[in-house]
């Protein structure tokens, strides 16, 4: 249908038929104020702020529900409209407590802004206000009914956006209020989206309330340290301390979406057990020492073992940056001369890349999840393990009628809207997916998301199945943590170097290292392998870089206190292969980024491994790592750059049993999650992770 032309405030405006007046105006720089209207969610027309004058219409009409029409003449600033707006604000403020000086929202409150712009200077309300007592609904969500203006944004984001439906309304008239549907507490994802979307200070965050004024903080956009979805979280920092996380500017691949981890689980940064000094084993006991002492002890041992041709084992992490991982493998391979380098793998990206080699456009991005016509989820409880991907698919279903298919061992939240949900035993997922062949082939395109249930040869068979459908298919291999994907890309693998280039010799994988009784040095950067597996070599010299005294760190001879993702710069790569940049938000005394620790160690050993500044290392990565020649401005400005696919075959030698997801829920995050008081405070993960 051709666009329609209308006039708004005398300005000719064209818009697609069906566009709402408020949107058409917004796109032409004309603001029509609104509280209840929220892009992407159902229409309410409850706040009456957006009432506009439409020629030939006796009554004012809400701009948020009235679609544009050919020849329509709209006035958004006529005296009648302005007076009405003022009246609505007067009504709203009549029962709204004017506790702005102590309200968390003060300074970034939509009601304040609207009153400032459109409101009356004087209040005529002299009656007693209706008051309701503040309620705590969960460790992270508080509700103040007096401040609530009943725009129902929270109800909609919870119901429509998340599919949780934890919120509702009770009572009527002026004493209406929002309530948890469970009664006096929330049974939900604790994602805090309701707090974020609240235009006033009615919903407040347990971690942030009454702590700061918004203008006292620096707002640092960085990438969440937890799962592999790669959400951008804007951390508000005062005096080096993170006070809250949100993403109100909708930058990043997640828009404004964040789950509990991205929004609240930054408190590990200031956990009392955080290591803030290097430790050295003296007389069998770990004791705090200076950096130079610790560095020289480790460097001396490394040099000694290297000189006598001893055995090193190097284990990297899935939360350290690409720069650190790249530098670590370079250190191991060039500096220590060992091929024994590995990390804990949680998804078979390698086999997928090999199966897809030479193909462009077969790797799905987060954006694809929102635009694809059909999606097939195999062996993952997305709402629990990959909340952003779950949110994207659900938004796709709401806005574009995505056809979703689910193949999982037990119920998942996607069942609610999936066209078909199949329960399948472990190992039989592909057969179950094959039964969907006819349905899938009808779609215009398809995205397949799969977890660690599909690995090794199964990945190849999945790609063959996708090819046989005769439609464009994109794949997304789900991995666990913020840089699980990057660790593989950077070559923390015993048989593959950066960019999956085969190495000349195949080293030991991490299980083999731990089982090797002749291992001389075990160097662990940000990982805790001894948590589940014992170290066979009793005499191994163990060097650990970590935030906390983990099981592995307790066995170490030297421990370096490292900085977390929120305390350093660098890049990380999410499940979908999108590279994004970390920015330093918090400051913690006594720690150093892993890259600095490695650089200093190299210096102490007398090695020349190049400059260890993140930007410089990333330059080297762009030059040398296959697929990472991404546009710098995209990353520098906080965007996500998709890494290219591997364009040649990759020899895959990894035993599939080494690939295993940690099976985190929405409220756990591996070792790191154990040090987040907020994650530990919420009662239990909602929904089900494959319970019957």
């Amino acid at each position, binding site marked *: 249908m051709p666009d329609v032309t209308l006039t708004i405030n005398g300005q000719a405006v064209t818009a697609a038929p069906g566009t709402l007046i408020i949107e058409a105006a917004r796109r032409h720089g004309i603001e029509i104020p609104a509280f209840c209207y929220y892009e992407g969610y159902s229409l309410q027309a409850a706040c009456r702020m957006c009432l506009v004058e439409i020629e030939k219409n006796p009554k004012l009409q809400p701009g948020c529900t009235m679609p544009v029409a050919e020849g329509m003449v709209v006035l958004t600033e006529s005296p009648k409209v302005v007076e009405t707006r003022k009246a609505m604000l007067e009504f709203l403020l009549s029962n709204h407590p004017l506790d702005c000086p102590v309200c968390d929202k003060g300074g970034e409150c939509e009601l304040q802004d609207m009153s400032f712009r459109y409101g009356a200077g004087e209040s*005529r309300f002299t009656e007693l206000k209706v008051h309701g007592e503040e309620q705590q609904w969960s460790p992270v969500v508080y509700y103040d009914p007096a401040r609530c203006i009943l725009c129902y944004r929270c109800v909609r984001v919870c119901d429509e956006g998340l599919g949780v439906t934890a919120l509702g309304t009770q009572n*009527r008239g002026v004493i*209406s209020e929002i309530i948890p549907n469970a009664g006096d507490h929330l049974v939900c994802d604790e994602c805090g989206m309701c707090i974020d979307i609240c235009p006033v200070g009615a919903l407040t965050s347990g971690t942030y309330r009454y702590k700061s004024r918004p203008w006292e903080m620096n707002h640092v956009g960085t990438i969440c340290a937890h799962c592999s979805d790669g959400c951008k979280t804007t951390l508000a920092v005062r005096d080096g301390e993170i006070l809250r996380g949100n993403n109100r500017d909708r930058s990043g691949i997640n828009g404004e979406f964040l789950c509990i981890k991205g929004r609240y689980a930054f408190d590990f940064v200031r956990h009392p057990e955080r290591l803030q000094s290097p430790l050295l084993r003296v007389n069998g006991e770990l004791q705090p020492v200076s950096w130079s002492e610790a560095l020289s002890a480790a460097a001396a041992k490394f040099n000694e073992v290297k000189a006598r041709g001893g055995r090193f084992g190097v284990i990297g992490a899935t939360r350290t940056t690409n720069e650190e991982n790249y530098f670590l493998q370079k250190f191991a391979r060039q500096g220590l001369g060992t091929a024994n380098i590995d990390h804990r793998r949680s998804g078979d990206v390698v086999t997928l890349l090999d199966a897809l080699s030479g193909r462009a456009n077969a790797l799905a991005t987060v954006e694809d999840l929102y635009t694809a016509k059909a999606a097939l989820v195999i062996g993952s409880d997305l709402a629990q393990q990959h909340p952003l991907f779950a949110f994207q698919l659900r938004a796709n279903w709401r806005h574009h009628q995505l056809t979703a298919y689910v193949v999982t061992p037990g119920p998942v939240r996607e069942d609610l809207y999936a066209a078909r949900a199949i329960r399948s035993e472990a190992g039989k997922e592909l057969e179950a997916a094959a039964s969907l062949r006819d349905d899938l082939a009808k779609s215009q395109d398809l995205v397949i998301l799969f977890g660690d249930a599909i690995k090794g040869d199964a990945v190849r068979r999945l790609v063959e199945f996708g090819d046989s459908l005769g439609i464009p298919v994109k794949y997304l291999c789900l991995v666990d943590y913020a840089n699980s994907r990057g660790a593989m890309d950077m070559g923390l693998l015993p048989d593959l170097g950066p960019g999956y280039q085969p190495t000349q010799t195949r080293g030991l994988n991490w299980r083999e290292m731990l089982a090797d009784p002749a291992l001389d040095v075990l160097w662990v950067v940000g990982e805790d392998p001894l948590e589940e597996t014992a170290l066979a070599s009793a005499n191994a010299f163990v060097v650990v870089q970590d935030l906390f005294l983990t099981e592995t760190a307790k066995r170490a001879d030297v421990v370096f206190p490292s900085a977390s993702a929120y305390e350093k710069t660098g890049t990380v790569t999410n499940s979908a292969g999108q590279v994004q940049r970390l920015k330093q938000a918090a400051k913690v005394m006594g720690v150093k980024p892993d890259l600095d620790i490695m650089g200093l160690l190299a210096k102490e050993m007398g090695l020349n491994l190049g400059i260890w500044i993140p930007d410089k290392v990333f330059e080297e990565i762009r030059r040398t790592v296959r697929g990472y020649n991404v546009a710098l401005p995209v990353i520098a400005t906080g965007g996500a750059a998709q890494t290219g696919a591997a364009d040649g075959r990759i020899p895959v030698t990894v035993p599939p049993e080494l690939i295993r997801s940690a099976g985190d829920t929405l409220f756990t995050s591996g070792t790191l999650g154990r040090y987040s008081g907020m994650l530990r405070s919420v009662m239990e993960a909602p929904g089900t992770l494959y319970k019957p």
Partner: protein
Amino acid sequence: MLFNEPHPLEVKVLTRRFEYPNAEPIGIDRFLATRGYEGFRKALGMTPEQIIDEVKKSNLRGRGGAGFPTGMKWSFVPRQSPKPKYIVVNADESEPGTCKDRIILENDPHRLIEGVLIAARAINASRGWIYIRGEYRYLIAVVDKAIEEAYQHGFLGENIQGSGWTFHLSTHSGAGAYECGEESALLNSLEGLRGNPRLKPPFPATSGAFQCPTVLNNVETYSAVPDIILNGGEWYSNLGTPKNGGTRLFCLSGHVNRPGVYELPMGFNLLRLINEVGGGVRGGRKLKAVIPGGSSCPVLKAEECDLPMDHESLAKIGSMLGSGGVVVMDETTDMVKAMFRIMKFYAHESCGWCIPCREGTAWLKKLLGRLDEGLGVSTDIDLANELARNMLGKTFCALGDAAAMPTISFVEKFRGEFEAKLKSAQAQAPVPGAQPLAVL
């Protein structure tokens, strides 16, 4: 079951089976003996177009308050839609001053069922609900019994009267909300949702109950249909005035000698209704004001009351025919108190969905209560008027208007009484801006 003594001026159509003093609702036997279900039998032999044409010809207008032409409403239903079509009866009679649906349900429930059946035939509906307000709980039993009788006699269920057509009907209780008399809020409530009004369009005719095409009318509207089909639309239309067909039930209450529900032709003179049918103002006092169609209609001063009771005449003087609830107020009435009482109702019943109604009714209630208690200040009267005008036409549904319109009319037509309250207040309590007493 109670019913007031009939009056000779009444034209008995809807109430033709009523007997005074009757003790029992009219059962199916007596109903059938008095040409009951004959209109429906006739409709079975008619096409949907013929039925709708006959209703259009009758000039029957919705009796719930808005007065929308019924035949036209039915013709909006897309009969070719593959979705099931539904009939919903609005028996959520909650407008203060109105009690007409109640006497139909109480005395002649089969008349309603027959009207529903004819409407269902006209749109080829398969299912219907009678949404009865929660406070009418005792009437649900009466209607349920009538529905059961209709099932037993083959007027409801499968293959109705051998026609091969299936239609099911049941009652559904409201939970005590005025707002659920608004059609879209009623549908939400019927579906088990919160009784908030819905965005319109879509209107119920295209997307009503459970997103299916739905005809939703008032009890009295459906109840007029059997006689329209039986005697022809023209016959019915001729009972009233040209644009206002038929008769309607006027619920006469307040300061009259003979309050009650009277069936009179449309266009009956209001003064005659009070003085002749109602036996005049109680105690021989002078008439002060009349609310012509339920509390949401702008009030009329005594001198405005010499007019025919039809939609156009009342609209001309700025009021509405509304739901037929005529509330008579004599010279002793305290108009400020009356307005406060009305606003108390609307503040209590506002669903809270939109800002101007939710906050406006609560504010006005407090303000009017303060004025009534003699604690008003000089700016309060204009403020009340202005707040009501800020609500008028700006709320999500008509409830806000229903609260605003009487306020504006009371303040403008009886401003003297409001000012007198101020003066007496100043005499008694000379402290301006004293603390209000009315707290929700």
